[in-house]
């Protein structure tokens, strides 16, 4: 359900904003004229934006604006119909999702995709990249097996720390399919972080998460930005979170970028108010 109050000439506008935001240094993520069509539906219609290094950038827009589809195209889950996606300078559009994660760009899904018949522990143990034991011969042959066991022991430690942080350690042995909706979102975020990424695309990660924990997770995100230089792109419908934590904010509408700027600017942007906030009230 999208608003009918689309304005012509938006593409030029957003291009202008992008040009203005260019500092000359290559940002971790740059999306250029991204398009995705499903049969007759154009879900993403020439979206262009950048995400600056170490930022917590918000991506907002009405339902069906194309936010999740943009994520899918960036992370290789869906192949874009057109356009380019640069991650740390190289074009990753159309690459396999695993290759993109290997480069350090990981995402979470809007509807949590826990591995239902694996335990919470197994879900997290899966995530770390380049595990020795992922080579069949190392997992099986005695001379290598010791190294695998050693690595597993280390990973196990990290996994438990993560579970405790996300306050789902009491569910560690539970099948992930038995978790509540909010717990699944937590599991998904914890799992994405276990891949040790440079950048995370989070699709409504706080949906169904209680406010105390939500605040704690936002703190953690800010800590990871400050201490490890991670970059976050966050899809969120909760305007309080967007206004308080995200900077800049990108607004999508009908598949393209309607506006981009500081939270205050966005709130006062007439088009955005028409297309999005207008709808919300």
């Amino acid at each position, binding site marked *: 359900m999208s608003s009918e109050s689309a304005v012509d000439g938006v593409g030029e506008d957003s291009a202008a904003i992008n040009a203005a935001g260019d500092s000359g240094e290559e940002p971790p993520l740059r999306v250029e004229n991204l398009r995705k069509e499903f049969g007759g539906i154009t879900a993403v219609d020439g979206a262009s934006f950048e995400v600056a290094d170490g930022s917590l950038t918000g991506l907002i827009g009405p339902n069906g604006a194309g936010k999740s589809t943009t994520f899918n195209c960036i992370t290789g889950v869906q192949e874009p119909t057109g356009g380019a996606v640069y991650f740390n300078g190289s074009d990753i559009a159309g690459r396999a999702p695993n290759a993109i994660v290997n480069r350090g760009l990981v995402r979470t899904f809007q509807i949590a995709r826990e591995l239902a018949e694996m335990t919470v522990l197994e879900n997290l143990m899966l995530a770390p990249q380049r595990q020795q034991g992922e080579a069949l011969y190392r997992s099986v042959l005695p001379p290598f097996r010791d190294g695998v*066991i050693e690595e*597993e022991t280390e990973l196990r430690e990290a996994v438990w720390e993560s579970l405790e942080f996300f306050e789902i350690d009491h569910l560690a042995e539970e099948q992930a399919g038995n978790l509540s909706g909010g717990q699944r979102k937590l599991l998904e975020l914890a799992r994405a972080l276990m891949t040790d990424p440079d950048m995370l695309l989070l699709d409504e990660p706080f949906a169904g998460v209680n406010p105390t924990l939500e605040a704690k997770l936002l703190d953690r995100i800010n800590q990871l930005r400050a201490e490890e230089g991670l970059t976050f792109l966050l899809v969120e419908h909760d305007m309080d979170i967007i206004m308080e934590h995200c900077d800049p904010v990108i607004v999508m509408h009908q598949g393209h970028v309607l506006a981009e700027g500081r939270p205050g600017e966005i709130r006062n942007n007439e088009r955005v108010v028409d297309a999005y906030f207008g709808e919300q009230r």
Partner: protein
Amino acid sequence: MSSDQFQTGRLTQFRELLERSDAALVLTAMAAFYLLFLGIGAILNYDVAGLISILGQVTFFTAVYALIVLALNLHWGYAGLFNIGIAGFMAVGVYTMAMLTAPPTGSPPGLGLPVAVGIVGGMLAAALVGLVTALPALRLRADYLAIVTVAISEIIRLTYNSPAFSTFTLPGGIALGTGGASGIGTVPSNPVQAIYYVDPSSAASGTTPIGAAIFGFFEAVFGVVRSAVIVDLTYGLVLAVVVFLVYTLLARVGNSPFGRVLKAIREDEVVAKSLGKDTNRFKIKTFMLGCALMGLAGVLWQGFGTGAVYPQAFRPELTFYIFIAVIIGGAGSNTGSVLGGAVFANLLFLLPQYLPNIIEQTFSIQADPNNFIAAVGPIAAGEIAPLLGYILNQRLPALRFVFVGVLLVYLMQNRPEGLLGHRTETAAAVNLSEGHTAAEQTGSDLTAPEGGVDDE
């Protein structure tokens, strides 16, 4: 404590043992099957040689089914790879072994290589055919693999069946052959014969010292026993060891980061990819390993087990049997696979072969009508024997399918996850639960639990 209480105490103890120890579970099941078939042998008035022979059969079929079900469980239970071309991969294994080892002077001619080369070659060939099958299919949706494997399996069987390859000459002038519809009769003899006979291919060549000792032992204890029966039993036991080794291998695969990725692929391949796993590589490796094991099962079963290789042994129903067995045991569990293989081999494969004789013997049914009308007609007159006779004598293979059907219906209604499919075998090389205390001791700097969420 009354002896009754004592008995129930023992019983619960035993049940707990079975739940805790997979070895106890499998051994108990096997003991039950051995007893069952000894009982059948007794009913049919078998002599000692007959009884040893029946034990040999139970061991052999249990082992070969367990082996192949383990291989399918790796494909289907672990990675969700729907391979319905099992018979074809077995055929590639055993045919390759036979063609590599058959004497060059034989008909059809082979390469005359040592048996070990044949076994390894058979496994490699099956793995390679698996690779060729999987490469194009795995990139597509999951169901394509099913279609491709069933097609490949039939193509393989028809190729071996075709007169075109009955004998042919390789570019170097080396003659080879599949024997066409009549297959290859010159499969090397069962390797355990080397333990017993001076010339492994001929029982008449005289016995080795070990052979003499073992035959002597059986002669002393049971009177004269045919040596072939003892050789067969030995072969069954060797196969049991092979099953144990393959089980150990697959348990390692399962309890490892590799197995964890397979589990993830089965659950949600997109997620596995979105966590950086190159799922195609995992699937291809797994598919090849499973196919190699299927090739091995083919060699040990149809090759050394029956002594001749012919295309009709690899009809699609063989694949169907293996799937039934994996469903009975519970997909995803290696111990379940061994149990499922044992249940299928004994209750659904062997038992129907003996059942008609037993029923005929106990109820002394003589009637043997040769058509359905003649069988059903007398029921009006209260005569049930013709129908029984008809079922027993004319419809023996159908009887097996009836059993399979009944068992499947029962399982679907009462235990859809199979005997051990409810089990969750954690995919990790270490005990993951243990990490908790360790993490608490080191005191994570990230954690600031609000309290009350600790486990007990």
